[in-house]
């Protein structure tokens, strides 16, 4: 036994030592860690050289570790990233600007090139957007959809697309893709592991990148390069590395594959046709930019000029009396529009447009009529309605029209009638205005108002109406009264005019003025009024001084014309003065015959009073008492006074005015001029009317 052990030690002693050493390496954790730390850098380096499988394998763990670290201590990462954030942002902005410039280049190139025009036409024809057409036509290839499909179940594990809304149901498509593969495999007996790697349908190709448990189906538009296949293959391998276990044990829950979406989305690649060479592209871009800038500047300049013209036009419109712009719209391509108010007498807006440099044909005016009240419009309205004659000066101020100078009367007459009806005119002033009269119009008006009698001629000169010939007085009188009311007639000349009177009309005028008592007859002969008959004193008093005032009466002739009142006066005076009141001898008592005579006197005195009043006379009556020669003179005077007083008392007692009477005692003396009478005759009282009216003969 010992020999055997010795033999084994000799034969295998070294190997046993090595085995013990190896066991020690495996079991000693510390030593194993040291060993791994030695080879790990080399292993990592080697793995990096082998398509980065280690990266992909470590990615989930690293991501998770980073997430936890950031959540726990974000400040560490802030501090770490702070120095590089600025450069990153700058670079990102620079990249964006570069992309923008490239996009601008492409757009400019496509916009101004013949090809671009063709694409625009295609976009119009197909109804697609221009951008879409540009993209399609300038595209080399574009991966539009990626399916991650489980090989065993043919179910869609994950689906990514550039435009998810444009794709059909990925579950059914994935199934059908698998079915087609199976169909092709079965139909051509290609073997269980054979893969339908690609097929083309129109502009689309479907590339299959197979994996052990799943495969990628990429739907590609255009012609993709071979290196895309390599990328797809790497992606499916990466998916298997990351999700190998889940793929192998897939039971229908595809949610676990969401984490590989970035890998699939990375396959949505695209390549577009390179534009012209950089230098050429830059030249084109600059040319296009310059052209565009020139075009834009030209458009801007034209727009500025156009706006300027439009503003100038609006200013002209608003400055024009009678035009008021309320709204306007300046269109570059369509007709421009101006709305507002326009006085019918305002100027036409089209010439204003021409003056402002605009084409009236490209303007639409919508004016509403109104009556402008500015002085110019009011003046236009005034002048249109009333043509201002030469010599007249018209000024308009605050609605007041002032007329100066000379003006035909008819024109002024029209103004006076109608001027205030003109909107904007409130008053008319004729200061320093000389009216001009047309002689023919004046004569026409005169003859219309006063038709000329036969044999009469009228003439008008310098305001004077000259009449000649023979004319009836009545016509002449009417002319005298009314001719000056005819505008222009300031005087009437009758030097050459003979006025003819019609006696009947003269008498008629006389009667019309004075009346003609029935007891009076009147006639006119050769201008002399002949009166006869009886008339009251009052009537005669009116007629005598004024009859000659009646045209056609130059004098009065009274033939047997009796003044009735004067006649009554004289008669009454005579009766009173011839009356004698006798008394008893030596007494102041009335004798019988004396009393009878006395009783008639009051009425007569009243009649005399009335007549005197009518003839305008003031009368007094002396009561003259007398006595016979018997007795002394003194006694006789006393007796005569008492007899006068008795008569006086009687008359006063009859209601006559005492002031009218003057009782006198004459004694026995005779009344001067009275013849001596028998004695009885002296025992009496006589009467004398005194102070007779001057007009009446005593």
């Amino acid at each position, binding site marked *: 036994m010992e020999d055997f052990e010795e033999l084994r030690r000799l034969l295998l002693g070294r190997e046993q030592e090595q085995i013990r050493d190896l066991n020690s390496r495996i079991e000693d954790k510390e030593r194993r860690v040291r060993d791994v730390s030695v080879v790990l850098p080399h292993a990592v380096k080697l793995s990096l050289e082998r398509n980065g499988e280690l990266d992909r394998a470590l990615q989930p763990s690293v991501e998770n570790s980073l997430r936890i670290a950031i959540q726990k201590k974000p400040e560490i990462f802030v501090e770490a990233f702070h120095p590089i954030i600025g450069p990153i942002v700058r670079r990102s902005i620079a990249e964006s600007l570069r992309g923008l410039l490239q996009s601008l280049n492409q757009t400019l190139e496509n916009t101004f090139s013949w090809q671009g025009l063709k694409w625009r036409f295609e976009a119009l024809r197909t109804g697609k957007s221009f951008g879409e057409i540009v993209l399609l036509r300038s595209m080399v290839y574009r991966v539009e959809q990626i399916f991650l499909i489980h090989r*065993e179940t043919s179910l869609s594990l994950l689906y990514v697309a550039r435009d998810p809304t444009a794709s059909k149901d990925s579950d059914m498509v994935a199934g059908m893709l698998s079915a087609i593969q199976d169909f092709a495999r079965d139909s051509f007996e290609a073997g269980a592991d054979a893969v339908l790697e690609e097929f083309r349908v129109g502009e689309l190709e479907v590339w299959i990148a197979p994996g052990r448990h799943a495969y990628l189906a990429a739907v590609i538009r255009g012609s993709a390069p071979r290196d895309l296949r390599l990328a797809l293959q790497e992606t499916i391998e990466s998916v298997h590395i990351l999700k190998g276990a889940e793929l192998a044990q897939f039971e229908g829950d595809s949610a676990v594959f969401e984490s590989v979406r970035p890998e699939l989305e990375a396959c949505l690649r695209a390549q577009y046709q390179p534009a012209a060479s950089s230098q050429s592209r830059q030249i084109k871009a600059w040319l296009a930019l310059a052209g565009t800038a020139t075009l834009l500047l030209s458009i801007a300049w034209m727009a500025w000029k156009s706006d300027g013209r439009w503003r100038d036009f609006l200013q002209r419109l608003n400055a024009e009396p009678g035009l008021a712009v309320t709204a306007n719209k300046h269109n570059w391509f369509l007709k421009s529009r101006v709305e507002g108010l326009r006085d019918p007498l305002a100027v036409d807006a089209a010439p204003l447009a021409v003056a402002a440099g605009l084409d009236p044909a490209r303007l639409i005016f919508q004016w509403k009529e109104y009556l402008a009240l500015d002085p110019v419009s009011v003046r236009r309205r005034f002048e249109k309605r009333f043509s201002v004659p030469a010599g007249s000066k018209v000024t308009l101020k605050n609605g007041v029209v002032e007329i100066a100078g000379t003006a035909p009367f008819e024109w002024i007459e029209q103004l006076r009638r109608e001027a205030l009806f003109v909107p904007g005119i409130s008053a008319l002033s004729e200061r320093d205005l000389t009216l001009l009269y047309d002689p023919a119009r004046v004569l026409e008006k005169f003859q219309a108002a006063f038709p000329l009698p036969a044999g009469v001629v009228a003439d008008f000169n310098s305001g004077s109406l000259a009449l000649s010939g023979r004319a009836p007085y009545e016509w002449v009188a009417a002319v005298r009264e009314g001719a000056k009311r005819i505008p222009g007639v300031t005087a009437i000349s009758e030097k050459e005019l003979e006025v003819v009177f019609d006696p009947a009309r003269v008498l008629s005028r006389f009667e019309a003025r004075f009346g003609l008592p029935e007891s009076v007859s009147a006639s006119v002969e050769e201008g002399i009024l002949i009166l006869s008959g009886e008339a009251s004193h009052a009537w005669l008093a009116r007629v005598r001084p004024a009859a000659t005032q009646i045209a056609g009466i130059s004098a009065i002739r009274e033939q047997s014309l009796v003044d009735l009142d004067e006649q009554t006066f004289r008669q009454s005076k005579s009766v009173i003065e011839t009356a004698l009141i006798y008394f008893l001898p030596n007494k102041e008592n009335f004798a019988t015959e004396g009393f009878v005579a006395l009783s008639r006197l009051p009425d007569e005195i009243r009649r005399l009073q009335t007549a005197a009043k009518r003839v305008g006379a003031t009368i007094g009556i002396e009561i003259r008492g007398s006595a016979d020669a018997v007795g002394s003179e003194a006694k006789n005077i006393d007796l005569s006074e008492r007899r006068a007083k008795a008569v006086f008392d009687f008359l006063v007692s009859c209601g006559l005015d005492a002031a009218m009477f003057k009782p006198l005692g004459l004694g026995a003396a005779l009344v001067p001029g009275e013849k001596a009478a028998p004695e009885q005759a002296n025992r009496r009282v006589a009467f004398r009317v005194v102070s007779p009216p001057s007009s009446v003969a005593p």
Partner: protein
Amino acid sequence: MIQKKICMIGTSGVGKTSLVARFVSSIFSDKYLTTVGVKIDKKVLTVDGTNVTLVLWDLAGDDDFQRLQLSYLRGTAGYILVADGTRQITLDQLLDIQARVMEAVGPVPFVLALNKADLQTQWEIGKERIEQLTAQGWHILLTSAKTGAGVEEAFSDLSRMLLAPKP
């Protein structure tokens, strides 16, 4: 969302396509059945609170002119066998087909839909036959593509079987 591949299997004319036509989402036309031999539809339903997407592989009928392409069965989670209740022979043929399917995909859940249940007067499949199959552990439903009777139940029952924990 859980996805399951389901195959519709049966001889020609038993009403597989009609059975699913009214109850599924479809983007492919029936001509795929005669060209590729399969048409894929989708049915989303909720079973016991779980949303399930059934990707239905409507396989062309197995007959003298076209054989069932077994490769289409690969990976199926279950299948619906369809027979015409008014034609006994369709069930007989279906049993042969089921044997081939079993051989290809193994013991996966399935249901038997005896279709055209609305034509009971012309019914040929006897009750005893049905009971016999039921006794063998088959899950059988009478369906009518015309009235819709039993169709939803067929999908639901199969889905329930698919979601049941595996022993």
